[in-house]
């Protein structure tokens, strides 16, 4: 089977800092892949390169067999790469409804979905449990609901690859349980790349785990393999192996 996403020698420097440093990465279709690593390891930078939000200093990104390294972000979204922000970035002055209507009408225009905007919006809001808050301004939703709205917007893009950057940050435990169910359901129709600090969530969801440290991939494998890896433990404990 051909990987859905591959990166070759992907790098990004910020001044002298190599935030992402020669990363070779492959993701199989249908997988739930967790990306973990200490703060500042380069996880957000890595997925930002994949989504096109920032440009690489060098290296190559291939999605579904096509080189997308030079595609602008909006074109990658239309190919099916959806990115949800680590720092909540919903349209605070627009209603939850309008926030989701934007991605829904995009997929309709692209011919990647069918039907009416209204039905698509309500479906995405229902899946994330926000339907009864449809007409509230997004900025007035609780923090947890704003995170869910981010996910709803990602879902509404009908992604083939959904990138979730720390989606459970700031969620209550009960909300996290619902969230795990939601990701499992999403994974039936999309490949999921999940950056997550919450290890129980990672262990429950991930098929495979990639560990970042200092801009490089430190280890990769099944949850059991990663848990047993001494280097990984050292990276998290902050000592050199």
């Amino acid at each position: 089977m051909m990987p859905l996403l591959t990166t070759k020698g992907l790098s990004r420097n910020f001044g002298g800092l190599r935030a992402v440093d020669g990363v070779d990465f492959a993701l199989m279709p249908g997988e739930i892949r967790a990306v973990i690593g200490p703060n500042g390891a380069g996880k957000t930078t890595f997925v930002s390169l994949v989504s096109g939000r920032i440009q690489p200093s060098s290296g190559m990104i291939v999605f579904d067999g096509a080189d997308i390294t030079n595609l602008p972000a909006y074109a990658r979204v239309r190919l099916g790469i959806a990115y949800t922000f680590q720092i909540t970035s919903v349209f605070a002055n627009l209603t939850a409804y309008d926030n989701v209507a934007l991605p829904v009408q995009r997929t309709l225009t692209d011919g990647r979905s069918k039907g009416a905007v209204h039905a698509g919006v309500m479906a995405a809001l229902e899946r994330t449990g926000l339907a009864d808050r449809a007409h509230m301004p997004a900025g007035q939703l609780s923090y947890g609901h704003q995170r869910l709205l981010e996910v709803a917007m990602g879902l509404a893009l009908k992604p083939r690859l959904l990138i979730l950057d720390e989606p459970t940050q700031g969620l209550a435990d009960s909300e996290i349980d619902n969230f795990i169910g939601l990701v499992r359901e999403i994974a039936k129709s999309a490949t999921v790349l999940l950056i997550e600090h919450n290890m129980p969530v990672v262990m429950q969801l991930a098929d495979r785990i990639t560990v970042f440290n200092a801009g490089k991939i430190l280890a990769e494998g099944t949850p059991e393999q990663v848990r047993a890896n001494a280097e990984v433990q050292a990276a998290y404990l902050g000592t050199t192996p």
Partner: protein
Amino acid sequence: MKEVSPAKAYALHLGVIALLFALSFVLPEYHHGLLARIMVLAVFAMGYNMLFGYVGLLSLGHAMFFSAGLYGAGLAVIHLGWSVPAAFAAGLACGALLALIIGVLALRTSGVAFMIVTMMFAQVFYLIILYFASWTGGDQGLVVPQSARVLVLGSTSLGLTNPTVRYMSALALFSIVLLVTLAVVRSRYGRVLVAIRENEERTKMLGYDTFSNKLAAVVVSGTICAASGAAYALLFGYVGSTFASVQYSILPLLWVLLGGAATTLGPLIGTLFMYYVVDITSGYTSAYLLIVGIALILLVLFFPKGILGTIRQRWLGWLP
């Protein structure tokens, strides 16, 4: 934007149009003429609002789009002897083309740089008008001959100098632009424009080519402003370089701020308000600009979102 009461919004707008229609039969001559002028200039304000209110792009150069329509239509009549509809179309085409060129160049910038770049282009446009004085009449301007300002419809010909014809023509243009604006801002495209205003980065990450969307908005805005300019030349019979000066780039901004940015009826209310404040105060004192200034400051203090913007915020959330 929301899924509430489209009927209510359309009823309100049709009501405003009906009211303006009825006013034509009751207003005394002076106010009748003034209102015709206000409606034409409100179209200018609506064009400006499309870009400033909905997309959040503050241009300081919209006088060039108004004048592109003004001179496009006026010179086509004066020098080429074109008919009124052809000249109007020429004005629109000039505005649309100019907006396309300016949009491609100016949209490389944003924020303060966009303000400065648009202002510079407008200044260049103004100087070009002065430079080609043999064609444009320079700072004296040109009068569009009365004999040419006749709209021929089949066997009837309507003189645009006739007050009623002039009022109804202004109303027709105003109504079309108002309803088009309403339809645009309620459409999917309008939702994207507002999203760009609120957070352009995020909008890109939802799959939107924000540059193209903004460029389209500049062209729509420029064309509407040109329609206002073209109508002005044909209905009031004068083209002059003052309309290309920086003052006429700032006026639509003031009208829109007064009436309420990103409201469909705000531009009319702002233009109307400003004209009547100037009109009334200048009747009492020669220091009327001082009073206008004070009125503006009070408005900004008590109605920071403009007249209609504040009404929408406090009472009528459904206003488009």
